């Protein structure tokens, strides 16, 4: 089991600092929850991961496909194209001697191919969301090269419409167990994007991740994205094997990158 874990590849987030706090990137066989205020970059990170999982094995990636389940409609295809182009230009920059790699791999480095390998599902209600996840198992049995499943965002349909909180807890815990099972059985990473809500604790209102306390136990790792002044930071809140840490990152025209150079940065929109 140890050797299997050591040979596990990670999906890079695009930002070296983020990768470091995550222990190399997003882990396969684990469910990672990413939460944050609106506008901090969750969907950007989701799209970046959907692209990065497709980086061919020759260039250090997983060479897999992605499943993107969109509940809010925030998947902008033009932005995905832009991020794909940014990823490809970074790969070519990093591997200048591209004549050593097979020419087939090079030909695959087209943004169109990256877009083609993302399986996109749009769900419009919580029943559709549950159905999509139930269908996932069959889908993954047929498409064994999927390496990441992103749900953006898992909260949306469960915040309104639900009168029975106990039912919501039961449904959500059943959902999370299914996702855990899929992650383990098909050796892929599951990334859940979550929204924030206010919670009244210790006499004041605080921002916490939505869906309640029981949901917070349903993921293997949790990453919280927040603003610190004008900079975006990520904080690793829950992990079975890594210490808590935070790291800055930036959202640039090319996608999620290290926060270093302050030009290109998309600043906070208030």
């Amino acid at each position: 089991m140890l050797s299997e874990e050591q040979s596990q590849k990670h999906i890079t987030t695009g930002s070296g600092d983020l990768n470091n706090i995550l222990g190399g990137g997003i882990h396969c066989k684990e469910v990672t929850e990413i939460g944050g205020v609106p506008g901090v970059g969750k969907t950007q990170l989701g799209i970046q991961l959907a692209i990065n999982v497709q980086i061919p094995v020759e260039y250090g990636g997983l060479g897999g496909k992605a499943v993107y389940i969109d509940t809010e409609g925030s998947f902008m295809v033009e932005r995905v194209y832009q991020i794909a182009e940014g990823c490809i230009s970074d790969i070519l920059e990093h591997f200048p001697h591209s004549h050593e790699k097979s020419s087939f791999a090079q030909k695959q480095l087209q943004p169109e191919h990256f877009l083609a390998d993302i399986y996109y599902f749009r769900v419009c209600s919580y029943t559709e969301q549950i159905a999509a996840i139930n269908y996932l198992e069959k889908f993954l049995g047929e498409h064994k090269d999927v390496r990441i499943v992103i749900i953006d965002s898992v909260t949306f349909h469960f915040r309104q419409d639900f009168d029975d909180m106990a039912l919501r807890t039961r449904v959500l815990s059943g959902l999370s167990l299914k996702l855990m099972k899929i992650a383990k059985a098909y050796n892929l990473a599951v990334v859940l994007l979550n929204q924030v809500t206010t919670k009244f604790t210790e006499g004041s209102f605080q921002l916490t991740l939505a869906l309640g306390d029981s949901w917070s136990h349903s993921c293997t790792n949790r990453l919280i994205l927040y603003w610190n002044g004008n900079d975006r930071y990520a904080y690793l809140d829950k992990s079975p094997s890594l210490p808590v840490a935070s790291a800055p990152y930036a959202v640039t025209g090319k996608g999620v990158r290290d926060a270093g150079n302050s030009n290109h940065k998309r600043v906070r929109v208030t």
Partner: protein
Amino acid sequence: MMNHDQPSAKDRCGKIWSGMQLLKDTTESKHFLPTGLEGIDTLLGGGLRQGQLTEVTGPSSSGKTQVCLHSASLVAAKHMGVVMYLDTSNSFSPSRVATIIDGSSDVFGQRGFDLQPKDMRLKSVMRSIICESVFDIFALFEVLHQLEGSLLNDKVNNGGSKICLLIIDSISSLLAPIIGGKYPQGRSMMISVAMILKKLADEHNLSVLVTNHTVSAGNGAVKPALGESWRAVPHVRLVLSRECGSNICTATVLKHTLKVFPL
């Protein structure tokens, strides 16, 4: 020390015990399995007691899985027996086990533990930990029945060692989808799991460690999940909490059959 001839399961159930026999049994065979975390071992009175069900509860990221990983690593490293680790959130990480063992190697050195080279030691530790993923309550029932069957047949696991520690991390995620609501089947399944675990613990001298999560109790307070019926089930209950942003966790005892705590 752990591989004494313990009374087999057939001898234990249905037999009427005298007080002296019980005392003898308790002092001779009901040992404490240390978790490796000093504070917790002190609160537990030595460690996880064999024959008992210990519950660790706490809000998210308070260290429950770490307690499980520490206990599993320590028990396996000291060759006390086989550990069965049932994981519901894919959190079992062999590299974390390796870090834990490397971290406490100085403790072993003092006790005359044979200092094998690192990877040999790690291999022997990993061989003593059986890790299985369970993702729903029925899979858990099946695993427990299989375990019961293999223990009753006195089959030795992993070349001579018997299982001595059973960890379920976390039992509340398996029970959450079925309890609540108007149908009582969920709660009855929870009670059956509890009975099977206690039976396994008692008949085969296992120590059982389960983790539970917390839910809000109104006004910002938290209480352990799984409700009132579960409260009476574990013999020892610990609550963990972690301050925001720090690495220090505190543990409080909610219930302990052997100790009295001033109110």
